């Protein structure tokens, strides 16, 4: 958030639907950010931002950036309709989804962003999640919006550059940020950056961007390549997985990566 706001500057209005960030931003009557922030209902991240942007335009303000900052539950699941509607109308705003791969604020329930095989309180180790993570970037790209990108804090220059780029584009922009959650992923808080980096190096979460739904570009080619195992083994939510399970994840990751490389411009 700090990096995103650094990139966007003070002329920014934040929209935050119910999620962990509703708390981080401060409970009433306090705020932790120096820009106006509107807390909205869980499912309205897309539509609330569109409304604020329209109000700004009525006032003749074309400068201020409207940034929605929503969790994966509020984006992949309950907020998908409002988001799809807003970006399909090509509303001029940025929608950032910080994805901790479950409903963390309410106690680690699975979302459609939870990856295959992961433990959550609603996918216990006896029945870990059986379906793959929803490909939200492909869904956004399929709306043919001007700009879609992935990012993580482990690569701060890449993240800042993507927010700056999004700021300079008119129309709907979507940025998907992988965000490790120590209790939800059962990991050491100190490893937050390391795990984010491993996600990229293991190609579980490649860093790329899509322009106009057509031009795919990989923005960070991993400096070293590591097997998925290294990413998985630092997280207790995967500790029940067998070698075959990890092999299965590896195969999926390899296939997705190959597909991405094939469609990316070199």
């Amino acid at each position, binding site marked *: 958030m700090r990096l995103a706001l650094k990139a966007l500057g003070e002329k920014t209005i934040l929209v935050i639907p119910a999620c962990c960030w509703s708390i981080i931003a401060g409970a009433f*009557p*306090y705020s932790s950010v120096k820009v106006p922030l509107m807390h909205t209902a869980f499912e309205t991240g897309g539509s609330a931002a569109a409304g604020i942007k329209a109000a700004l335009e009525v006032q003749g303000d074309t400068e201020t950036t409207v940034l929605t900052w929503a969790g994966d539950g509020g984006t992949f699941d309950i907020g998908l309709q409002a988001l799809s509607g807003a970006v399909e109308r090509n509303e001029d705003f940025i929608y950032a989804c910080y994805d901790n791969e479950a409903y963390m604020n309410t106690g680690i329930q699975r979302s459609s962003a939870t990856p295959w095989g992961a433990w959550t309180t609603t996918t216990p180790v006896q029945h870990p999640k059986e379906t793959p993570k929803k490909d939200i970037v492909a869904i956004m790209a399929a709306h043919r919006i001007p700009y879609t990108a992935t990012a993580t*804090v482990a690569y701060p220059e890449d993240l800042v550059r993507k927010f700056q780029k999004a700021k300079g584009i008119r129309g709907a922009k979507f940025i998907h940020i992988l965000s490790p959650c120590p209790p939800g992923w059962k990991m050491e808080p100190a490893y937050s950056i390391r795990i984010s980096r491993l996600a990229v190096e293991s190609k579980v979460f490649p860093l790329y961007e899509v322009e106009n739904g057509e031009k795919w570009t990989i923005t960070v080619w991993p400096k070293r390549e590591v097997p998925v195992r290294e990413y998985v083994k630092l997280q207790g939510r995967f500790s029940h997985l067998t070698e075959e399970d990890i092999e299965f994840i590896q195969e999926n990751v390899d296939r997705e990566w190959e597909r991405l490389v094939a469609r990316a411009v070199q």
Partner: protein
Amino acid sequence: MTEEIVFKTEADMPYLPMSLGTTLVNKTGSWRYIRPLYVDKTPPCNHDCPAGEDIVGYLALIEEGKYKEGWELIMQENPFPGVCGRVCPHPCESECNRRELGGAIAIHTLERFLADHTASQRPSVQASKRYDAKIAIIGSGPAGLACAYHLALRGYPVTVFEALPVVGGMMRVGIPEYRLPREVLEREIADIEALGVEIETNMRLGDNFKLSDLEDYQAIFIAVGLQKSRKLNVPGEDAEGVIPGLELLKRVNLGEEVQVGPSVAVIGGGNTAVDAARSALRLGSDVREPRSNEVTILYRRSREEMPAIAGEIEEALAEGVKIRYLSAPIELLTENGWVMGLKCVKMELGEPDESGRRRPMPIAGSEYALKADTVIPAIGQEADTSFLETGEQRLIEVRRGHIFIDAAGATTRPGIFAGGDVATPFGTVAHAVGSGKRAALAIDKYLRGEELSGFPPIDEAVHAVPKDMDPAIVRFDDLNPAYFEEIERTEQPQRPIEERVSGFEYFGWAQYGEVNLGFNEEEAQAEAERCFNCGTCNLCDTCLIFCPDVAIARLVAPPYPVPLARLNGAGYEVNYDYCKGCGVCAEECPRYAISIEKEIKWKK
């Protein structure tokens, strides 16, 4: 803004639920059970330098282009950077964490670079105090001169007594000029003399004066080195054409004419043997008549056990010196009093001896003869303590050929200290420098009536200007490899082999230039940049960028105070009101400059 907002009645509340203050009111630091602390730690290079140099500090200064400051940082500890940057076997490099990613940092070449780059400048340091107590130093080798330097810096009048007509000990009469040019040594000795150190040459203790003549001096430091060549103890050793390695080197270094025959046999495996062999190769060679002789080293063990500096052995081989391993002479063959050859026996390696090396044993019936018209024994040197008079021998204890000293460098007689090769088993210039410095610090304490305690064991370095860092040593596993890439080590260029051995013509004279040519500025920069700065915060901002609680603040901005690398954590401040103790900063710090400590309140 950071006060708590209290609504006493409904009327105090805003009409809309809007924020009226900041979350700074919530001191999340109270959640913390671990605390990050900025603490610089000791890199292996610093720990392993026998002269106690702050290597990581001067590598950082090179990176910043601050060459004079880098050189002065070395001079705080070691007055011989130009010498050590050339001849030191660089134990500092053997554990360098860069080994894992492209090879150890070429520390000695960078040390040399600093000394050479600042050759036209002189140090600005001067003693701030003046004491009356006079100190006598016996021997002007690196131990004696380092002791003199550190005492003079502390304000003591020092006189050095040297037996030879020249100053510098083995740096002057042992190590050949092709490894250590005369002007480099002279420049660094001049810096020591500039502090007021008096050096009296042609003054041999035992011949020209006795210890009892030194009553005017309140303390004495004995650093006479090892000057006696060990004998082979085989028949024929006294024949013409036999010249001990040390003597050959001394005569060459004193500018005397020395002749060697067309086949030269050198016996031994240490530095003296290798230097004597390479010198013999040069003596028998000339620009007009290249490579007229053949030089063979005979060593009774194998290559692995050879005590000479590994790089020197390689260079000797490259220049054409031959080495016969597992061979020992049993007789020197003579004719009319002149040596003609050697009778040798082949050896095999048996059980390890007390030195840990495998003991060589002769193989029966393996004798063979070797032609040689010059034989150079170089099987080791011994201390000559004959200057101790009968009464003194009881007071100053000599054990196993070495003057016995404690951790402070003190002999068994109060007020008399000893160091360098005559008292320690290490045999390098850097160790001798460290040993002389140790004695200087001890003599300073002794003259002020302080107890001679607190000195580390003799095989650890002492520091004249201790640096503020945790003694914990940073190993490769403590670093964060995500921030470092493999980069090849930069090697200094060398003079072409033919030119080294045969020399080059200079006003009709053959000149044998220095073998190693050092780094230019560009190479020095490239090599210094490879350094990880293990354990030393270099203000990279990684911790600041990643702290999720925005609890880290930077305290300094460019231009940085000198030396930047010695800020020891003063570059940043953690706001413990808000640091939640997640540990991300310490985990991500590329160079282990942040430590984690448990909060007391959690200790039950």
